[in-house]
């Protein structure tokens, strides 16, 4: 249909617009805040709305510069905003796809053969009974044609086929067991006194996009949230982004809790595991950093598809932890680190974290 084609074209224009402004969208939390259950509204201030254009009719109402001198008469300035903001709704999945195209991200390849299985109803069978809404027109017609020819009543001069009740065929589902691709994302965030509101906003924006991208690749995705200062605890999403403590930073506390959760609830044969840790990198002591490295080396890295660490600069710059990780795991492909000096670096950081396609 023409309208479908036009709508498709309009959506392509909008997608192009979103792609061009992606860095801006990714660095602001406006978009994250507009997230509904499934849809995200994106304000697009510069989309040209289609309008009617007149043809070459000889008679009609004209418009031109006119002639005359002296001051004209006009109205006073309006008090409403001059620009109309058009809000376009996208699913989170669509946004993740746009991001993937723009950042040229490779698709994630789930690790190994999953042992977990799921049963899905696939509509690929044909039955003689069923609801009319599932009637298979082609198979019904073929059956009617076959019966008509077999009974000798088929007239090639006047090929009218009238299906009767026995001819009707319906689509029906067949339960099919498939290996389930499931992933668990563990977000860990430093909420110690040195992590300010700006740093948390950056983490929030990053988590939104990381989440969207991983969800694009797995049927089942579970997310768990861990906050830590000197001690770690598991919290819900809202608390994760809102909590601020004044305590010190013991990064090992978060890694220990993450390991505990994974050991109890996510057997690594059945789950693709994605731990993401965000901090300003000011760990309490060198001995705790050593403990972190040991926990990573012995458990978290072997269990995970990829361990990602993003270090967000605070107003006091960037801490030491990222250097310690990079120095230790220089040859470990499954450890990916990224520094986020400001909001503008969110897009590059996400590209770094997701570039390996694990």
């Amino acid at each position, binding site marked *: 249909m023409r309208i479908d084609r036009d709508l498709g074209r309009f959506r392509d224009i909008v997608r192009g617009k979103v792609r061009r402004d992606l860095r801006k969208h990714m660095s602001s939390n406006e978009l994250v805040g507009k997230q509904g259950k499934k849809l995200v509204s994106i304000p697009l201030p510069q989309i040209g709305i289609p309008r009617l254009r007149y043809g070459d009719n000889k008679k009609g109402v004209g418009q031109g510069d006119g002639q005359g001198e002296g001051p004209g008469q006009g109205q006073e300035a309006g008090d409403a905003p001059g620009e109309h903001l058009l809000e376009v709704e996208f699913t989170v999945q669509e946004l993740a796809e746009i991001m993937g195209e723009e950042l040229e991200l490779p698709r994630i390849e789930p690790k190994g053969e999953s042992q977990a299985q799921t049963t899905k109803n696939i509509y690929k069978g044909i039955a003689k009974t069923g609801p009319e809404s599932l009637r298979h027109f082609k198979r019904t017609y073929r059956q009617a044609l076959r019966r008509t020819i077999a009974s000798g009543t088929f007239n090639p001069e006047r090929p009218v086929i009238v299906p009767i009740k026995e001819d009707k065929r319906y689509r029906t589902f067949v339960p099919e067991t498939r290996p389930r691709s499931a992933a668990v994302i563990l977000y860990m965030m430093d909420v110690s006194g040195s992590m300010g509101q700006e740093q948390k906003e950056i983490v929030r924006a990053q988590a939104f996009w990381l989440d969207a991208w991983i969800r694009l690749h797995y049927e089942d995705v579970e997310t768990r949230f861990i906050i830590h200062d*000197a001690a770690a605890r598991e919290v819900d999403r809202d608390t994760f982004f809102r909590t601020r403590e004044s305590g010190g930073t*013991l990064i090992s506390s978060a890694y220990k809790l993450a390991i505990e959760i994974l050991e109890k609830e996510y057997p690594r044969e059945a789950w693709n595991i994605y731990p993401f840790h965000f901090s300003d990198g*000011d760990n309490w002591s060198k001995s705790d950093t050593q403990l972190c490295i040991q926990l990573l080396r012995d458990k978290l890295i072997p269990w995970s598809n990829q361990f990602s660490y993003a270090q967000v600069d605070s107003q*006091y*710059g960037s*801490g030491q932890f990222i250097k310690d990780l990079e120095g230790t795991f220089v040859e470990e492909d499954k450890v990916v680190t990224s520094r986020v000096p400001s909001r503008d670096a969110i897009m590059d950081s996400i590209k770094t974290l997701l570039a390996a396609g694990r």
Partner: protein
Amino acid sequence: MTPRDAIDLALDGVRAGGTAQIEGAGTQTEIEVVESDRLGVKVRRIRVERDRAYDVEALGDRWPKTVRQLPDRLKPVEIEPRLGGATLRSDPEDRVDDTFMEVEVRDRAAEVQRQRTTPAGREASDWSMTREQLRGLLDALSEDGAEEP
């Protein structure tokens, strides 16, 4: 020898740079000096170690008011009684360049450094102060404001 004399003597011994060590009543102080003269001193790091642990909650209240000899005012960033430590840094309002002062307290020791933020991270930086300011700073760092046990 008075504490003042002890500090002067230690600084006179490292005029071209080095580590000055000062024994006081209940404190041991180590100052990494870049250079010093009769009036002032350029410092890389100061470490004060006490006989008893710091009360980090008390010093978090007290030091922003009493430690005024550094280039910027201090602000508590992390106070962690569970680990017996604290971190105080320059109040962002006082910062005029890409450096900040940092006082890290761990158990019985307090360490003062100046850090410069760089694209690659942080690096230690020197700062200058008069001998009078240094004496005042050492006094302030030896007291956490908690009552004597």
